[in-house]
Structures are given as C-alpha cells and as structure tokens.
C-alpha cells in the first residue's frame, strides 16, 4: 500500500515540478501577494487530485489546469473578500536613474501591468508569460478566438497608456530630484 501511495505521489509530483513555478508566477503577477500565491498553488494541486476525472483527453491540458487555477482564485476571493487590491506600491520601488536602463524599464513595465484592470492583466499573463496559445485561452475563457485577439489588443493598448504615464512620471521625478531640496512625493510617478 505504501508503494501505491508513493506511486501516485511521484506522479502528481511530476506535474507539480512542471507547473508549480508557472502557476506561482501567474498568481504572484496577478495578485502581487507571494503567500497567497503559494497557498493557491497548493489548492490547484489538491483540486487536480480531486477532479482529475473531469479532464477530457484530447483537450488542451494547460487550458484545463489554468481553468482550475482561475477557479481556485475566484473561490478564494469569494470566501475571503479582498483586504487590499494590487497596488503598484507593493512592488519594489523604481531603481534610481543611474542603474541599467533595461532594469528600470522592466520595473516600470511591472508597475504598468499592475495598474491594468485584472482581466486585462490576466490575459496578457496567460498569453505572454504562461505562453498559452490563443486557442487554449479561448477554451479557458470560454469565448471565441476572435474575442481573444480583440481582448489581447485592448489590453496591450492600455498597457502602453499606463507605461507611458509611468515613464513620463519617472522623467518628472528625475527632474525633481535633480533640483536641491525638492523631494518628490510617493506615488508621484503617477502624476502626469
């Protein structure tokens, strides 16, 4: 019996090793909360154990697993209504101007992503970071392929706008900090 138990564990372990980091990143980039993200990853694997009969062979497996992941998050926030929303302030502060430009851009991008409404952030994460194909996303969200395309484009447009606001804000901040005795307020990066 021990052998049987180890066998099933080993197998779920294979899935765990493969999916824990992508799922963790999906949650952490969506919610900005590491502890909650780890809890939700555990919940996903518990649900895989419980509901594995619901997987229809021949359908995209990743769409199924992300379906479980989305439901786990929705159920969690239903039970425990959000105490805090994802604020860009929860991310590490933007590195001062003298650091590598690319590094700074990545951090601005992270902040810009955090400013998006959750559904837009989610669809960008799914296709760009989780590398789901458009067909898989359509299956996952239960919508048409064309709708997926439109939503991706809208999300990208909005990302550009918030990224723009942030870069202009940073330029302003830099100008402010160059002037002696002028301390820019926190969140000043959102001023345009």
């Amino acid at each position, binding site marked *: *019996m*021990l052998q*049987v*138990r180890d066998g*099933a*564990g080993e*197998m*779920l*372990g*294979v*899935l*765990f090793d*493969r999916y*824990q*980091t992508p799922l*963790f*990143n999906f949650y*952490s*980039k969506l919610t900005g909360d*590491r502890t909650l*993200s*780890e*809890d939700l*990853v*555990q*919940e996903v*694997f*518990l649900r*895989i*154990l419980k509901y*594995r*009969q619901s*997987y229809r*062979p021949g359908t*995209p*497996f*990743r769409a199924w697993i992300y379906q479980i992941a989305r439901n786990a998050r929705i159920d*969690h926030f239903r*039970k*425990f209504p959000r105490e805090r929303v994802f604020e860009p302030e929860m991310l590490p502060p933007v590195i001062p101007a003298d650091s590598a430009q*690319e590094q700074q*851009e*990545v951090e601005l*991008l*992270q902040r810009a*992503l955090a400013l998006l409404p959750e559904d837009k952030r989610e669809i*960008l994460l799914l296709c*760009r*970071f989780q*590398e789901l*194909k*458009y067909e898989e996303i359509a299956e996952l969200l239960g919508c048409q392929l064309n709708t997926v*395309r439109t939503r*991706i*484009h809208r999300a*990208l*447009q909005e*990302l*550009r706008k918030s*990224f723009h606001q942030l870069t202009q804000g940073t330029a302003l901040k830099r100008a402010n900090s160059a002037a002696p005795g002028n301390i820019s307020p926190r969140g000043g990066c959102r001023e345009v």
Partner: protein
Amino acid sequence: MKCEQIAELLPDYLEGSLAPDQLRDVEAHLEQCADCSEEVALWKKLSLLPVEQPSTASRVRFEAMLQAYQAGRSNQPAGNPEWKKRASTASVFHWLRSPLGAAAWSAALLAIGIFTGLRLAGPKPPSPDMAAIQSELTNMKQLVVLSMLQQQSASARLEGVTWSTRDQHLDPQVLSALLHTLRYDPSVDVRLAALDALSRHSAQPQVRSSVVNALQEQQSPLVQVALIDQLVEWHDREAKPHLEKLRQSPDLNPTVRQRADWAIGKLN
C-alpha cells in the same frame, strides 16, 4: 493601412502566424506608426519580466497535502464529514503551519505508519479501499502521460512516452495518444520512442494496424526503417502488401527500399 485594420492583425503578428503579404503590411505600418510599434515593443518586453521562484517550503507542503489527501481517502468512513465541510483548504494550510498543526501532523503520520505497517504485516485479500487507490493511481498515470504528450518541448514529450511504459496494461486513451504521437509528432526521436512503447503492446490489434498505416505516412527514413523492423519482428504477414506498396513509392530513400526488400523476403 490604418491602426484599426492593423489592430485585427496585430495579435497574429505577435504570435508569428501571419501570412507573408499581411506580414509585409503590418511591418510597413509599424515603421510609420509610433503607437503600434510601441505596443509591439512592450509585448516583447513582457517576456523580460523576472520569473519568481516559490519558496522551498512549497514542495514540503505539497508532499504533506498529498499524504493528507490519501490518508483521508483510505480512512474516509471514519472521517468527520461536517468538519471537512467547514474547513476551507486555505484555512487548513494556515493551520498546518502552526506548531499545533505540526504536532497533529506528526501524530497523523505516525498513525498512517502504524496503519500501513499493520496492512503490510498480514496478507489480506484486496479491500475496496485498496482497489479505489489502485484505480486512482491508474488515473493519475494517464493524466501525467496525456499531459506530457501535449508539451511543447520534445524532451517533455519523450518523458511522457517513457511514463506510458511503466504500466503493463495500456489504457485506451493513452494508447490512442501514443498512436497519435507515432503518426504526427514533429520530432523523430519522440516518434521512435512512441514506436518502442507501442511495440510492447503488439497483442492489441489496433497497435499492429496503426504501425502498418504509419508506414505509408512517415517521411523520415529512420522511422520508416524502425517500423519495417518492427513488422518483421512481429512476423506480420498482413504487412507484406503494404511493404510492396512502400517500396514502389517513387522518392523513397534507397536504404529504406533495401530494408523493405529484406523485410518482404523475411515475411515470405
């Protein structure tokens, strides 16, 4: 082209699935339009976002969850369903982290150990519990194999094929996934591995007929030779007409043709 027209094509451009003429249109537009090209640049930058690593405790928690679940399954009649209903999984995880939780864990694991020891000590006929766990195990294997065979990386698909060979009995769904892999997988290595996995199940008539059919579809000489060898090993006389047909294909690799001749001789 205007931005609105480009908007319809942009997602496919980003995915790299545009037809050449559309691709030209989009690229021409991107050179002129700052907004659209900025969107493309941002899309590319999204892949630079750092990958965060979960804590090392995560794996330990996973193992604990797995054991708790399986212990719960095998002791289900004794369990208290009311308690189960009330406790949400999230709160269970919080509880597991507390010192009291840890102590309870140790006790539970000890109990599982004793239970297992007693089970192993005396040979008993298989209980319904045991059968349930056995069937869970089979389910899990299927799920792993089926998911692996869909992975994008060839090495992951290879791993999936290897997983499928761990079971003596091949589930019909796994069988059809392997047959699909044999015919359509883009990687030669994965197709060869699938053939190797399938060769263990020659008793199933579907396997033999699929190998014969795959013969006509394969383009890779390596796989063709492997298929021919397999048919010879099975002494599959019904394959002879198919081999004849294969050797008459106009652009067949000479080595494969030679091998087919050899096989036809063997099967006579």
